[in-house]
């Protein structure tokens, strides 16, 4: 990738402007533009070995071992044979190389697959099917419907009117809604006439390759005219052609120069906390290693001076070596011998463990979502243990907490509430999947996916209850939804907000089918009867009005105004006669709100023809005013929207994903703080906060920060803090925290539980450098934080803020392209897969289909991974330190001559064979309590957040423990052996027997220690542990056998040692004694701790033992019904400006569907109305009540793209 990146940089420097001519390869050739072939692979068969090795040796550990190898080749230094390092190193390099090779082969394969896709290219005046990789800049290619766009193209012509094409950009930016691109008229006229296209010789000058997806500048020169090119005329690679018969395009950028490829930059490499700690520790160990070696070197110097100089008779020094030089050599020799404190297998094992634990995530059936056939996926395999340490979760709302499905759930019409189901005793029933659904078969146009359970509403419709009819008529008329009918009866709606879609769909099912619209009419089918209403005006929605109205003339000629909007707003504009109904409706509204439903109040009024005409005149005047138009219009709207008659209220459920409240409850029990960062507006977000248990009625207070100036924000934050911590005098943060770069802010205790809601504006101020700590401090004192209307960038900023100052592990979870920044910023990013585009998933570390799987990911997989990794590290350091320290003690007996205690083969195989599998087995299978218990006791998660299992302290303890063990392991055999002989008088105190004895003692000691560490003995573990011991003896006897010796006497000099000493009782008695002495303090210490101050894990394990069986299933949670008066009231994710669009007619590309003309001319659907779909860039506006009009933001109109055609 890096080479590729360098390439790009070079090109960029050279290429300031791109010039190309269509259909002229000769002309384009000298520029040496990249062809359309892509290459994401790194190696080819020849470069693989050198490049891969080069990369591998860039890793510090590998380089270190290479260095050791070099040391070992120097005979004066070499204290160990070269194979002790070469064997592990080669093994590690081979495994890594194999992994890299498979990865690269896969990349080659996918490259090939992409490069060999076929596309039609215009060559030699003929359309030919060519491979993608042969496409060159300047070629004209033909794309067909549902084809991937081959390269970055300039659109020439298309099958659609006005030269439009529709593209899906999900792969590029994650947005699933269709986008429109339009060709220049001059090129559009080329049509699909191959001759004309072949004659096309336009010249394009445009920007050099870059990665900006939303911008393009260039000019087309054709037939002497210059035309400007912008993003609207460009089809980018990575998008897909939809709903378009065919189109022609001119290739501008190919392969690596396309914006897609320019965008797939290196993702930042994430490291876990343990990784960082390990790096620190490894540095410490290196320091310690140097320290030990220095001591031994000094020891050697003294020994050489005192003893060695007299021993030269028997062992002459090499020429010119004096004590000092000898000490210097000894230093390096001991570096080699003691290198096992940082064994190479540590890194390999850590990777294997992480990989294994990642596989468990992939395999977990409980994180598999059958409805979308999506298993969980660990996309990064190196972060597992960090899942067990999460302290902060940043969650997106829409699509993550909620399904982004709006369902029309309940309504209140004329004071009667519909939507609940009661059994025969009058008890309200819980609505489940199995509750009987209302049968809409009477209505041929009904949407089969719509569900409703209360039969009385259908009855009311059928009985022609006038209020009910008006209610649904209003829903069918008063909206900005677009309808499309591909086939008779197959309606699909395009709504800019899912709420509206839900309401119109509800009306449709209850017999008021919105069928089509023109700029000035709305056709609906009322109870099977086609009626066309004249649309006289749309009084559009905006954030201040919080309502929209339409004025229509019925076929009978009656003028009516239909209005829907926030309850508070509508209530102010009702006729006095409604006051009684208002009270009843309010009560029902409260009930709806209490269930977390989004409510809208509906009202209407009949208009007087004369008054309306006069009003319309004024409206027309006002709308042509040049200045102050907005306020004039508002006045006019206010004037006509009064004395409304209340119809009722609708309640829409913003469906939470399954199990979200429970998950949040579980996670907060695990002491994880959840912050919701959403683009939604405050009311919606708050509402969801309540319905998913994040905010609770029992909370002492929920602070709402929605100020508009930095001072006010600061004040509000301080006020919040003062009320959380009365008597807190340190309102100001100490300068030291503000001044210095990174400092960890401690958690502060507050009395009570609080929530914080902050909106985008305030957040922008709060995230400024001067205030970020203030904000963070306040926010961290709260139990739940909701940030609304945040931009993707702010999401990332919030995450960074917490990361920087809290020193805690963060996790971000989201589903859309707007969450990518935060997913990348957090320590761990989780993508919700399945619904939106892939962008979030692609940049995430873990992905699964449902928010509720998060608790399993953290509480089970994360916790286990962390536990396993920590156990592994503690044990691994223990076993290696113990192994190594024995050498240290022996040095005092062998004249500091860097003689090893063990057989060299043992040194080689200790980490690789004898102890590898048992510790791997432990770290792959260990669990303290099973998953059910982990769920039931979320507190078990807390130790991970506090880094309790592995820290510097734990490491230090390990080192002390190994120090003790190594002393036992050296001095006991020493004392037992140094003055003894075999039962038959022959030697047993010789070096080889002693080596065998010590290594056997060591192996027993560390194996027993492993047994103590392991709390979950599966058959595999047991097999590994016992198998490794058996293996040790088998290998030892083989290595020490006659035949091995005779094969290579110098490599296997230990011949017969095993046979001659392992048959001695005192050898085994020594092994027993060392084992007992090594285990004794550990068991004592642990037992005492369990008795005196057991950890949470001990308690749980104790509990599990007592229960002896799986715990009782958690009590079925009854749905939390809030009886509070807090009303979500108005919640309407609506954007301003669509009314104009609808009436302007710009959007409507073709005349409204004509009933009489039959259904032959089937309209094209742009996209099926999918309630799941959500525009990722869609940012609903919502203003706090106190916002000023002037602050109303312009909302983007992404959902509908206005088409401004110069020819129109």
């Amino acid at each position: 990738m890096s080479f590729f990146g360098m390439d790009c940089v070079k090109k960029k420097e050279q290429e300031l402007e791109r010039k190309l001519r269509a259909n002229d390869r000769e002309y384009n050739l000298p520029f040496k533009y990249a062809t359309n072939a892509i290459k994401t692979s790194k190696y080819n068969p020849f470069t693989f070995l050198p490049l891969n090795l080069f990369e591998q040796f860039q890793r510090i550990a590998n380089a270190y071992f290479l260095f050791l190898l070099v040391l070992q080749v120097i005979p004066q230094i070499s204290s160990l044979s070269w194979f002790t390092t070469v064997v592990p190193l080669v093994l590690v390099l081979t495994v890594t190389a194999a992994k890299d090779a498979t990865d690269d082969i896969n990349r080659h394969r996918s490259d090939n697959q992409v490069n060999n896709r076929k596309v039609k290219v215009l060559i030699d005046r003929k359309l030919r099917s060519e491979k993608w990789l042969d496409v060159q800049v300047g070629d004209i290619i033909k794309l067909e419907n549902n084809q991937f766009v081959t390269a970055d193209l300039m659109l020439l012509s298309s099958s659609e009117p006005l030269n439009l094409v529709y593209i899906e950009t999900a792969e590029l930016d994650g947005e699933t809604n269709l986008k429109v691109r339009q060709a220049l008229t001059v090129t559009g006229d080329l049509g699909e006439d191959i001759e004309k296209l072949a004659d096309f010789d336009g010249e394009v000058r445009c920007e050099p390759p870059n990665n900006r997806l939303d911008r393009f500048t260039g000019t087309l020169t054709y037939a002497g005219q210059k035309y400007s090119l912008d993003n609207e005329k460009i089809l980018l690679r990575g998008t897909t052609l939809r709903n378009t018969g065919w189109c022609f395009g001119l290739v501008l950028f190919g392969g690596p120069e396309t914006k897609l490829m320019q965008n797939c930059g290196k993702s930042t490499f994430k490291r876990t906390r343990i990784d960082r700690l390990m790096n620190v520790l490894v540095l410490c160990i290196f320091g310690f290693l140097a320290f030990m070696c220095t001591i031994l070197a000094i020891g050697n110097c003294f020994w050489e001076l005192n003893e060695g100089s007299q021993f030269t008779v028997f062992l002459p020094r090499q020429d010119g070596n004096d004590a000092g030089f000898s000490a210097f050599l000894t230093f390096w020799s001991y570096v080699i011998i003691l290198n096992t404190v940082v064994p190479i297998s540590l890194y390999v094992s850590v990777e294997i463990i992480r990989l294994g634990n990642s596989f468990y995530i992939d395999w977990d059936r409980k994180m598999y979502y059958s409805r979308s056939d999506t298993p969980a996926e660990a996309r990064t395999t190196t972060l597992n243990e960090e899942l067990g340490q999460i302290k902060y979760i940043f969650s997106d709302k829409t699509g993550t907490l909620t399904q982004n499905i709006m369902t029309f759930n309940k309504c209140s019409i004329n004071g009667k509430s519909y939507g609940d189901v009661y059994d025969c005793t009058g008890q309200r029933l819980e609505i489940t999947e199995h509750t009987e659904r209302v049968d809409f078969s009477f209505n041929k146009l009904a949407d089969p996916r719509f569900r409703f359970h209360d039969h009385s509403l259908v009855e009311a419709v059928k009985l022609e209850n006038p209020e009910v009819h008006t209610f649904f008529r209003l829903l069918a008329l008063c909206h900005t939804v677009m309808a499309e009918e591909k086939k008779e009866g197959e309606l699909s709606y395009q709504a800019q907000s899912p709420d509206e879609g839900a309401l119109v769909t509800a009306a449709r099912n209850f017999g008021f089918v919105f069928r089509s619209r023109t700029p000035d009419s709305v056709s609906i089918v009322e109870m099977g009867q086609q009626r066309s209403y004249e649309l006289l005006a749309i009084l559009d929605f905006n954030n201040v009005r919080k309502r929209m109205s339409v004025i229509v003339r019925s076929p009978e000629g009656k003028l009516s105004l239909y209005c829907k909007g926030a309850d508070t707003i509508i209530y102010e504009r009702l006729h006095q006669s409604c006051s009684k109904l208002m009270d009843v409706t309010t009560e029902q509204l409260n009930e709806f709100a209490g269930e977390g439903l989004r409510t809208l109040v509906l009202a209407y009024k009949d208009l007087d023809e004369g008054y309306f005409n006069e009003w319309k005149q004024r409206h027309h005047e006002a709308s042509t005013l040049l200045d102050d138009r907005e306020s004039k219009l508002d006045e006019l709207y206010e004037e006509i929207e009064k004395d409304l008659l209340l119809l009722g209220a609708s309640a829409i459920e913003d469906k939470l994903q399954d199990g979200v409240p429970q998950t949040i409850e579980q996670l907060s029990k695990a002491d994880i703080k959840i912050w919701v960062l959403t683009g939604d507006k405050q009311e919606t977000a708050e509402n969801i906060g309540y319905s998913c248990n994040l905010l609770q009625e029992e909370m002492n207070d929920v602070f709402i920060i929605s100020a508009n100036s930095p001072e006010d924000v600061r004040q509000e934050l301080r006020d919040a803090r003062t009320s959380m911590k009365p008597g807190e005098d340190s309102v100001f943060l100490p300068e030291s925290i503000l001044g210095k770069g990174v400092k960890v802010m401690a958690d502060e205790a507050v009395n009570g539980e609080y929530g914080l809601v902050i909106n985008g504006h305030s957040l922008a101020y709060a995230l400024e450098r001067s205030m970020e700590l203030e904000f963070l401090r306040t926010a961290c004192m709260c139990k739940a934080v909701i940030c609304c209307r945040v931009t993707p960038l702010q999401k990332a900023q919030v995450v960074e803020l917490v990361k920087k100052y809290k020193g805690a592990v963060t996790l971000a979870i989201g589903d859309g392209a707007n969450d990518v920044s935060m997913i990348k910023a957090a320590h761990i990013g989780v993508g919700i897969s399945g619904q939106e585009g892939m962008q979030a998933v692609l940049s995430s570390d873990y992905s699964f289909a449902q928010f509720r799987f998060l608790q399993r990911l953290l509480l089970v997989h994360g916790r286990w991974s962390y536990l396993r990794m920590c156990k592994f590290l503690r044990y691994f350091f223990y076993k290696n330190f113990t192994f190594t320290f024995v050498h240290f003690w022996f040095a005092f007996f062998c004249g500091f001559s860097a003689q090893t205690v063990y057989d060299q083969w043992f040194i080689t195989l200790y980490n690789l064979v004898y102890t590898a599998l048992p510790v791997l087995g432990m770290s792959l299978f260990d669990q303290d309590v099973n998953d059910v218990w982990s769920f039931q006791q979320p507190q078990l998660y807390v130790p991970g957040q506090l880094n309790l299992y592995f820290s510097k302290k734990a490491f230090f303890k390990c080192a002390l423990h190994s120090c003790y063990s190594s002393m036992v392991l050296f001095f006991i055999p020493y004392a037992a052996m140094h003055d003894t002989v075999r039962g038959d008088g022959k030697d047993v105190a010789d070096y080889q027997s002693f080596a065998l004895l010590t290594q056997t003692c060591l192996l027993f000691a560390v194996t027993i220690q492993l047994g103590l560490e392991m709390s979950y003995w599966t058959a595999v573990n047991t097999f590994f542990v016992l198998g490794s011991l058996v293996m040790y003896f088998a290998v030892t006897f083989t290595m020490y056998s006659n035949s091995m010796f005779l094969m290579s006497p110098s490599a296997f000099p230990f011949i017969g040692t095993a046979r001659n000493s392992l048959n001695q009782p005192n050898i085994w008695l020594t092994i027993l004694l060392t084992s007992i002495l090594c285990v004794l303090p550990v068991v004592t210490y642990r037992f005492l701790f369990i008795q005196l101050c057991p950890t949470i894990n001990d308690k749980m394990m104790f509990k599990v033992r007592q229960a002896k069986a799986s715990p009782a299933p958690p009590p079925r949670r009854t749905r939390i019904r809030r009886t509070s008066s807090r009303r979500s009231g108005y919640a309407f994710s609506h954007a301003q400006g669509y009314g104009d669009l609808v009436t302007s007619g710009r959007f409507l590309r073709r005349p409204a569907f004509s009933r009489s003309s039959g259904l032959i001319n089937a309209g094209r659907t742009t996209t099926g109305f999918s309630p799941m779909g959500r525009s990722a860039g869609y940012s609903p506006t919502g203003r706090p009540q106190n916002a000023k009009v002037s602050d109303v933001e312009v909302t983007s109109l992404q959902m509908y793209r206005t088409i401004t055609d110069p020819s129109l």
Partner: protein
Amino acid sequence: MGKVKPGPLARRPDNSAFQQQRLPAWSPMLTANTVLPFFYFMALICMLLGVWLLLTVQSTEELKLDYTEAGTCNLCFEKRKNVSNAAQPCICTAVFNIKKAFKGDVFFYYGLINFHQNLRRYMDSRDDAQMVGRKNNLKSPSSYCMPFDKDKNGVPIAPCGAVANSIFNDSFTLSYMSSSGSVHVPLLRKGISWYTDKNIKYRNPSTENMTLPQVFEGTAPPLYWQKPVYDLDPLDKNNNGFINDDLIVWMREAAFPSFKKLYGVLHRANKPFINGLPAGNYSVEISYNFPVQYFRGRKEVVLTTLTWFGGQNHFLPIAYLVTSCLILLIAILLTVFWFKFGKNGQNMEE
């Protein structure tokens, strides 16, 4: 996993106990029910072992005689101080007394103190391939043997290396001063090395009708040797060359700077040695060759009887007894703690 299952649940993970992490397992925990009985049991076991071993060790007899400067050997000691006298023989005698008869097999060791056979460069300085009889290595010894691989004239040394070069070359003659005069104590000088060493690890180069001296023709003895390797044992032709028992014993390097090596076993064929060594006065005549003053070492002679447990090393029995007491103490303490704090599991409450 590669395999593609058709159907709507195509990507559903397999429901195996392994993949779902539901493997049946045993989860032990350190509870009072297991730990305390185990501790008491271990204390008992260690106690029994300790007592038994102590009794075993007590039943052995051992005598150590540091002869470095003992008796007349101080003369030889002085003589060896001077390198120029290295070749001159020196014989001295040391006397000692055995108060209690050594019953059973009696083993005669020589011991060296502060002789570092375990130095890395010393230990490496040998050629196992040569000593297993490889002809190549006989003529061109491994470079590890340097500087004892070739003599001044470039003739390869066999056996090469510092280990062989520094072989312990004192010899002993033990006499029993009985009432009827001095009786030679017969020592068996063979069968004192490991079977594997004698038969596999060390072999003379294949002779093919040649005599041993012929085989070793073209090699030089190690610098400090007075006799060539094929002439180490003038009494037994089959105990010469690399398979000489004394050489093999020496070549098995000791793990620690103080060590003893088997010299011979009492030959109990004739009276008065049928039951071992009788009590009384003994003298040992030493051919004092090995210089220890260079490394400030000591030389000793060790006479000992053995049991199945080996020689008279009191460490293990005592260590077991101490451990036993330690475990018992801990066990009692733990019991008290458990009784006071852990018994009702009150600490286990959340």
